[in-house]
């Protein structure tokens, strides 16, 4: 051991003087994951209405937020206010909607609905408990003033984001 130390010292003295840059790499895995759970479907209970309400023949889209660390993120979910795909519409579409918890993995998450913040078509939830939370988004589109939607395919987008706070 001693001999090895001497040898290394000697080599150090013999080396020429150099400048080196070392790279430091780190990976940060997200502690919040957003996963689509259930695809939404619009029902067409009357000619002028498209609705995700199950009683109207629709299906509410559900998105799941998995949070590993509590009180570090908020969920920001927006219900649609326009169609991403539709036949040509000559009249205005009135959008309404709401977002709420549909399932929780911890009873404390039941308080998310009472504490949610809503503005425009956006709803924000503070994710104060670690675990999984399922959020359900209801939306309804009313065409014109009791006007029938033209035939065709209609698509809309629900936006869900996990934002660090």
């Amino acid at each position, binding site marked *: 051991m001693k001999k090895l130390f001497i040898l290394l010292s000697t080599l150090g003295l013999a080396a020429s003087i150099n400048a080196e840059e070392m790279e430091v790499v780190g990976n940060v895995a997200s502690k919040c994951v957003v996963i689509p759970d259930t695809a939404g479907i619009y029902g067409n209970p009357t000619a002028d209405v498209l609705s995700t309400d199950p009683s109207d023949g629709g299906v509410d889209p559900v998105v799941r937020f998995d949070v590993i660390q509590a009180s570090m993120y908020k969920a920001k979910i927006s219900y649609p206010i326009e169609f991403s795909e539709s036949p040509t519409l000559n009249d205005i579409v009135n959008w309404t909607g709401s977002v709420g918890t549909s*399932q*929780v*993995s911890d*009873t404390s998450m039941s308080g998310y*609905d*009472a504490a949610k913040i809503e503005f425009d078509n956006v709803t924000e939830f503070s994710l104060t408990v670690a675990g*999984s939370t399922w959020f359900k988004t209801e939306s309804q589109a009313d065409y014109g003033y009791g006007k029938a939607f033209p035939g065709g395919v209609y698509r809309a987008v629900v936006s869900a984001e996990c934002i660090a706070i």
Partner: protein
Amino acid sequence: MPVLLAYCSYSYSSEEVYGTTTNAANIGLNWVMSNILPQATGLTVNNVIYRYTTEKDPEADMLVHVQNENAQGNGYIFRSTDDWSGLPGNTINKTIPVGGIGIDFWGDGSIEVEGFGTVLDPEVYYTYQYVPCDNPQSNPECPGYIDPLTLIQEPEIDTSSEDYIQEELDRKANTKAQRDEEEKKERDKFAKATEEKVRESLEKMLGLSIGAGLQEAQDTLLHNALVATNYLPRTYFEQIKGGEYKDVEMLKDSTLPDNANARRVNFAQDIMHQKIVQSQYD
């Protein structure tokens, strides 16, 4: 998810099988585990997955326990408690790893509510794993399975050994003696039965039979049976009309003449009779 959870796959091989039970709480808040888990040797439960919805007053206290009794002792082998006190009702969805607890420990399961509130739409699933042929005798399709019937084999006998020959001789001798004994018993039995029969017949003839009354009753029964089957001619039972039956042919009184042809014989007999009587005095 329920569709995926309900899917269970089984195949008999030495590879491990993973599966998920059907909803244990589909018929109520109590369930019997032997009806839920496959009864496979070496099966272990890895996770308990449950979901239910609570309806309650947000201010009310409510505890919900999802649990399984410990089949090998007291208490519970699994118990998860959700405290809904002071919270609004919601749907809870939990997956709880239990670390591979053996099937023998899983007692009956239940969802118990403490406080005020109602549990709706409960779903409880168990994920499990086992090696189907961990015990090769558990299924005939398992490699290494031995048919128990083949294990029952007669021991091989050396027919040339002295012991075997001696045993056979003894057995035959014993058999002959036994047969003779049985024949003797049979003969004695037959002789005794014959003697008894003769004795009964004599008693019957002499009217001493104890069972004479019984015999009479049996005869009556036999008679009735014959009558019922119309075996006897009906004329046996015809009644003969009463009254006086007078002779139709009557001989009128008159003088009967001697038979002249018989006179000679009568005289000859008389003479012979006299001679015989006289001969005793001569």
